[in-house]
């Protein structure tokens, strides 16, 4: 595949961001490659009802 890019004027006024979190990136510039991976686990088994049991120690 041939991919042709013409970068003309890029002029941005205001960027308002609440949060950049969990290995996220906010970049003003050029980059060759970006590779992002995330796992987020909140399954039914992680809802524990009953007496508070401490988690496995460190």
């Amino acid at each position, binding site marked *: 595949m041939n991919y042709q890019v013409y970068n003309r004027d890029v002029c941005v006024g205001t960027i308002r961001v609440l949060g950049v979190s969990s290995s*996220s990136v906010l*970049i003003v*510039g050029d*980059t060759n490659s970006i590779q992002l991976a995330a*796992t987020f686990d909140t399954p039914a088994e992680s809802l524990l009802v009953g007496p508070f049991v401490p988690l*496995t120690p*460190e």
Partner: protein
Amino acid sequence: MLNRTSFVDKINIDTMSFSSVFEIGDSCSIQGFSRAIALQREAEYFNTREGNYSVYPIFSEPIPLLPIEEELTIHTSQLNPIIKVQTIDIIGVSSSSIVHIGNSGNISMESRVKHIRQLFQKNNNRNPSRD
């Protein structure tokens, strides 16, 4: 390929935490990694030295990345090699995140989060006003 120059007139970041980076200038390689056990309890109950990443497979399972098999030829023409931003306003940057003004090479970021909630038994609710 000539890279562009970034112009940011004003940037305001309120909070940066947990190994986050604010970089002004170019970089060639960025690798970020963060992992967290987010435990929410219905009552304030704290234990020191609890929580072990090795118990939960989410922190060790491989995250597959599909290889790019398509033959790719990129040609970029910089007709106006400037990226202009007047104002950036960020409230928080957290957990190995990056705010970068400038060019970079290869960026690779990974995040693994495990959520756990511990609740009271409903019939044994110690805070009946919440019902």
